[in-house]
């Protein structure tokens, strides 16, 4: 890497109680790119994502060894503010989870947690986030209706907008399109391509094809370990590891 | 890692959460402090098994009241539990949704009626009926049992129903697949499976019956002598306190608190049994 990578994962070992879930993981993630971390079920992709915004802290008995550097600083250092971190590294979950409030209040939730109080600035932030998530035109006339009335695809874009409202630096997406129809999926994938200009995006796709469509780089995980990683085109065309090619071609899943 | 504000709010919540424990402790401590001296003075055996309750003469035997409480409660259980169980089976197994949506709120309503209203209604209807058809003054253990049976219905019904509904569908389907009728399934498979919950429900109902005061005061007749039959008037541990607390003082008052101690102990034992039964799923 000629420039400093956005995120550096160094010798990461992650445990749930005594069970080792991620082994000796090393990866450098450049800024303003889309990285897809994929693998069969229970490979640890979700866990890996959650180590990046320390959401794994919520699980009792979870602990890790190694370092994860964001802009060169270890996010697991003892004096790190976790709430600050989570505003810099946002997450979209696999199930669209609108909070039981209006569309506007959903997007405004994050900014309001901080000290953003003035109505004008909040409204501005909400509009900007919705535009970036390509949802503004569809909802601008009903911002104060319950978010639960949106379709699945719209709800997921709402979740993306909710994260964008915090102006993060990194966006984590854990199987964001699972359960969505192809049209919604395409819309979301398109918005990701536009978003990478301003953000670093790490996605755990729900199938390999999505990784191929959307990602600049990929990393293949198997049972908690990194198998191989690199530019998407290279890994898919010339996988260095037999397991990678087997998985990509569908010999196992 | 946790900010100071977080730590403070967590400690505040912990203090609040201990309020239930503190209340329980306070209640136990204060009741015991007031009541233990007189028990010590009179002697536990004399207090609990003494036949004579005449505070003005210094006689503090609560056995007639214990008999009163036990018989009234037993009667309530005998009358009320079968009806309650049938009703819970009705709600869990037989009632169509529209009907159960009517019956369930009705039962909740039954639970909310003030006990004084129950007592009064019993005074107006049940007591004369007993007096006219069965003899005696009407104000009797039987009257108390009838009223208490009605009052414990909601408790027993709701908990039993929950236990029945919580059973896995497979139990019922398995029995049907073997050719059992609906009733056979209920009797031989579902009820035994829900036994622990049903037992807990019954015990809680009994606990409620033992603890009831106002309704019982109005229909029991409140004679201090040992009752000889269910048509006799009687006093229970609770009505004894309820009637005399208004004018008791000194040792008399302490003796009422001592009665409260006995009640507390009975309830604690019942609760423990109920929780044990419920946990044995």
């Amino acid at each position: 890497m000629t420039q400093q990578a956005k995120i550096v994962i160094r010798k990461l070992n992650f445990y749930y109680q005594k069970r080792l879930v991620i082994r000796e993981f090393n990866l450098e993630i450049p800024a303003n790119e889309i990285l897809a971390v994929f693998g069969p079920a229970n490979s640890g992709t979700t866990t890996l994502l959650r180590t990046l915004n320390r959401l794994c802290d919520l699980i009792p008995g979870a602990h890790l060894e190694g370092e994860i550097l964001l802009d060169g600083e270890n996010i697991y250092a003892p004096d790190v503010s976790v709430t600050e971190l989570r505003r810099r590294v946002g997450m979209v979950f696999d199930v669209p989870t609108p909070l039981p409030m209006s569309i506007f209040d959903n997007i405004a939730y994050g900014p309001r947690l901080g000290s953003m109080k003035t109505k004008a600035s909040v409204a501005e932030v909400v509009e900007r986030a919705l535009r970036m998530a390509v949802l503004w035109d569809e909802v601008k006339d009903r911002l104060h209706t319950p978010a639960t009335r949106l379709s699945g695809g719209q709800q997921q874009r709402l979740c993306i907008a909710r994260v964008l409202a915090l102006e993060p630096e990194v966006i984590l997406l854990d199987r964001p399109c699972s359960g969505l129809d192809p049209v919604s999926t395409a819309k979301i994938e398109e918005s990701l391509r536009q978003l990478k200009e301003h953000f670093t995006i790490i996605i755990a796709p729900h199938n390999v094809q999505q990784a191929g469509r959307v990602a600049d780089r990929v990393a293949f995980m198997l049972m908690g370990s990194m198998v191989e990683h690199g530019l998407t085109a290279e890994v898919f065309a010339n996988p260095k590891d037999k397991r990678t090619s087997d998985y990509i071609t569908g010999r196992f899943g | 890692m946790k900010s100071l504000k977080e730590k403070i709010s967590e400690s505040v919540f912990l203090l609040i959460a201990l309020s239930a424990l503190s209340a329980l402790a306070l209640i136990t401590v204060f009741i015991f402090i007031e009541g233990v001296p007189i028990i010590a003075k009179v002697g536990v055996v004399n207090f609990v098994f003494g036949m004579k309750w005449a505070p003005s003469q210094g006689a503090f035997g609560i056995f007639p009241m214990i008999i009163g409480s036990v018989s009234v409660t037993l009667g309530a259980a005998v009358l009320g539990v079968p009806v309650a169980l049938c009703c819970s089976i009705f709600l869990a197994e037989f009632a169509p949704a529209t009907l159960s949506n009517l019956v369930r709120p009705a039962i909740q309503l039954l639970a909310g009626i003030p006990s004084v209203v129950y007592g009064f209604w019993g005074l107006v209807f049940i007591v004369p009926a007993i007096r006219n058809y069965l003899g005696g003054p009407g104000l009797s253990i039987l009257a108390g049992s009838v009223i208490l049976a009605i009052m414990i219905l909601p408790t027993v019904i709701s908990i039993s129903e929950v236990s029945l509904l919580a059973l896995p569908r497979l139990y019922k389907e398995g029995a049907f697949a073997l050719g059992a009728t609906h009733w056979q399934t209920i009797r031989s498979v579902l009820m035994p499976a829900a036994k622990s919950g049903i037992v807990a429900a019954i015990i809680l109902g009994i606990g409620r019956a033992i603890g009831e005061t106002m309704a019982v005061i109005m229909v029991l007749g409140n004679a201090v002598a040992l009752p000889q039959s269910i048509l006799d008037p009687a006093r229970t541990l609770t009505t004894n306190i309820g009637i005399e607390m208004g004018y008791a003082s000194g040792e008399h008052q302490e003796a009422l608190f001592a009665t409260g101690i006995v009640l507390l102990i009975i309830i604690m034992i019942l609760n423990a049994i109920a929780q044990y039964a419920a946990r044995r799923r």
Partner: protein
Amino acid sequence: MRVSARSTQMIAKIVIWSAALLVIVLLLAIMIYILLKGVPTLNWQFLSEIPRDMGRSGGILSTVVGTLLVTAVAIVVATPLGVGTAFYLTEYTREGRVTRIIRFSAESLAGIPSIVYGLFGFIFFVIYLKLGWSILSGGLTLAVMILPTIIRTSEEAIRTVPSLYREVSFSLGGTKWQTITRAVIPSALPGIAIGIILGIGRCVAETAAVILTAGSALRMPISLFSPARTMAVHFYILAREGISMERAYGTAAILIILILLVNVVANMLVNRFVARGR
């Protein structure tokens, strides 16, 4: 002679349906009787006048006020304690010794007879804390009485809030306190409200504990330290002493109507809660 399974089933069905019918009939018998006899007495005068001549004439205003104030004190005290306990049990701890002790305390409190609460309230609030027979003594005693109900319903309400809501709030940088107040409480509110409404119902209906702590003075209470008579106590005294059957029925009718209201509101909330929880 063996009875066939078919006929046993038929008999069982008849018995069971009859039991359900019996329960309904009993409920209607009690309610209709009281309402029939009591509603004719109800008019604005009855509610707005204070009792005169030990309750033989006049209205029941002071008892209405007494009931309202005692209930208000109980709710104001029990709600934060109960909801706070529920939050502690669900959000701050895992199942363990501490939670088991707290739950055991709450369940034990629930089983204590109301007359024993009366004894406790008398010796602790009236005598020991020197509050005397007062609305405060009565309200605080009732607060302890309804605490278990509020804890139980609040805990259930909080548990049904999807854990994803909490995860989302945390992932957006929320602290635990913010997550509880902004993501969990709004969702759990209807369920918590149910507990409060049921608590109100219990306070209104309670007699034994109140008579020993708030007293039975008929004068209009002027402060929280004044003694007061609630409607339930008033009904008891009127009926037992035979002072005025007419007014007794009227008071009972109001009590029944209040209980009806409480139940209706609680049921509405339950339906809304279930519908939203989806």
